[in-house]
């Protein structure tokens, strides 16, 4: 059974459909990364689940049962925000134990339990401090402890790492991942950073303009993007063209493809940079171009090769790249069975 189900969920603000007919299921204990550019309706979706906003249409179900008529305090869908939003008038321990206090725990018992949780998130012995005496990263840990102590049925994380510096962010990613897995908390993790989504998410749900674009495992988005827009968002190279039979006419020339769908008409093709074969021609799909950029990335080198109006990105082993200097002309092959074809956006 799905732990959390969104069914045709919509939220209009004025004439704008911020969330538009969103249907999504999250398995128990799963961490779903809700990915999308800013303004895609990710935060609104979380607020709808938490009960801080009412949907215009659609249903939200926990374990198959609609929770739309329940106020936020009964849903146990706990939000954690980008800003820690701690209660400044309470000690760190009272902040962390807030959920317990609301459940009617005695102050001392809640405090003891909170101290334990603070130790678990890496803040032992700081229970008596005020939030203002903690660093931003520490405050975010307190917010995490507070969310976990409320024993969430669903944990809603709204870009909780966006305000942290890179090192701290990496650390917090690990911490959130660990505590989420250990407790098997059903979690939605909102982010606009596809790398973060790939690293954190068991699955990713990509939304554009309030609409669900694609749901799948992280590799799906690189290897089998559903639309050119998705491919762009994941940083893949996209070549628009027109399909006719097994051939796609692109700015690189005519490319043979083996994939059957989508059929004839406007399409786009994409290829992973590491699948491009450089230096020599193959039986088909061979193009010639001038190397305009070369970026050393440790384990591989990324070359940008200008072909007519387009640029092909290819990555290869550093040893191989030595024979391919900037300015040089090279042949390369885009293997037909490595090309991924998508219907053009808006079709």
């Amino acid at each position, binding site marked *: 059974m799905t732990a959390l189900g969104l069914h045709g969920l919509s939220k209009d603000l004025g004439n704008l459909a911020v969330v538009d007919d969103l249907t999504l299921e999250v398995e128990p204990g799963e961490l779903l990364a809700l990915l999308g550019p800013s303004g895609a309706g990710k935060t609104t979706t979380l*607020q709808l689940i*938490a*009960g*801080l906003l009412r949907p215009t249409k659609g249903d939200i179900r926990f374990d198959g049962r609609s929770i739309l008529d329940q*106020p*936020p*305090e009964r*849903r*146990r*869908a*706990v*939000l954690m*925000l980008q*800003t820690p*939003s*701690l*209660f*400044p*008038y309470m000690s760190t321990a009272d902040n962390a134990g*807030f*959920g317990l206090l*609301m*459940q009617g725990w005695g102050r001392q018992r809640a405090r003891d339990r909170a101290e334990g949780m603070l130790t678990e998130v890496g803040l032992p012995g700081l229970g008596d401090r005020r939030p203002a005496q903690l660093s931003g990263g520490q405050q975010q840990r307190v917010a995490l402890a*507070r*969310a976990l102590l*409320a024993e969430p049925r669903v944990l*809603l994380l709204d870009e909780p790492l966006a305000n942290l510096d890179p090192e701290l962010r990496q650390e917090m990613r690990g911490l959130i991942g660990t505590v989420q897995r250990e407790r098997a908390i059903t979690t939605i993790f909102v982010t606009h950073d596809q790398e973060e989504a790939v690293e954190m998410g068991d699955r990713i749900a990509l939304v554009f303009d309030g609409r669900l674009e694609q749901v799948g495992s992280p590799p799906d988005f690189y290897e089998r993007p559903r639309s050119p827009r998705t491919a762009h968002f994941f940083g893949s190279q996209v070549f628009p063209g027109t399909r006719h039979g097994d051939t796609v006419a692109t700015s690189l020339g005519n490319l043979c493809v083996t994939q059957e769908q989508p059929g004839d008409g406007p399409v786009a093709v994409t290829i992973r940079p590491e699948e491009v074969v450089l230096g020599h021609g193959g039986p088909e799909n061979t193009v010639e171009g001038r190397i305009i950029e070369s970026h050393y990335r440790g384990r591989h080198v990324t070359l940008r090769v200008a072909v007519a109006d387009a640029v092909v990105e290819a990555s290869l082993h550093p040893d191989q790249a030595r024979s391919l200097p900037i300015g040089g002309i090279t042949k390369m092959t885009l293997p037909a069975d490595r090309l991924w074809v998508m219907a053009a956006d808006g079709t």
Partner: protein
Amino acid sequence: MNLHPAAQDRTGSIMRHRERDHTITARALAASVLILLTLPVATLVLFSVTRGYFFPQLIPAEWNLRAWRLLLRPGSEVWGAIVTTLVLGLVVVAVALVVAIPAGRALGRHAFGGKRLVELLLLMPLLAPPVVVAMGLDFAFLRLHLTNGFWGVALAHLIPAVPYAVFIMSGVFANYDPAGEGQARTLGATPLRTFRHVTLPAIAPGLLVAAVMVLIVSWSQYVLTLLVGGGQVVTLPILLFATSSGGDTALTSALAIITIIPVLVLLILTSRHVSRMPLARMGTR
């Protein structure tokens, strides 16, 4: 000053002089403000314990506590007036705050149609001369049978009191981050407990300032109390004006001190919070 100073020393010494100048200026300013504030009160104190103190006498001819004895004797109507003024003030504070918390939140945090009009309407009672307001109210209240009684006067006091409270609270809410409220709700707090544990502690200093302002507005109200209360509701200002027209300087002075002291004490006790208020942002947004 040192005759052969190194350049650095000279700068340092000039800086020290500047600092000293600033301190002197600040002290002089503080002293004059203090004198301006305390001199009238001091004069009142002097007049309240003397009799027949006229120019060009240097020292009063006669010292006595007649006025104080008269005012503070058991059964004096001053006691009743103090109670009336205080109870009236507390009722007005309570009602004004209950109105001002949601109204200030709406004005401080949200954009809505007719917001400017609401703000203008709120300012009207503060701009219109009190006598005009009071006359109009008196006519309206006569029809509603609200004249000559405590509740009518309380209602009348709310007219200048509510705008003060609302503008102060809208300034408080303009700087208030409501994110914590949503957090509290999802953590299991009911709306009431969210207000009690999250909202109230955050707005408490502003609420205190609003309460003090409203209490002062009600405490010093004369025209509204006189016209709507019809002389039946006797507050300290009513008593003070009546006494002052009687021409007894000592009695008037003593009563003026009784009227002003609670306000001064209240202001001194809460000045820390008042000075911290973001006055510049009040009523904006």
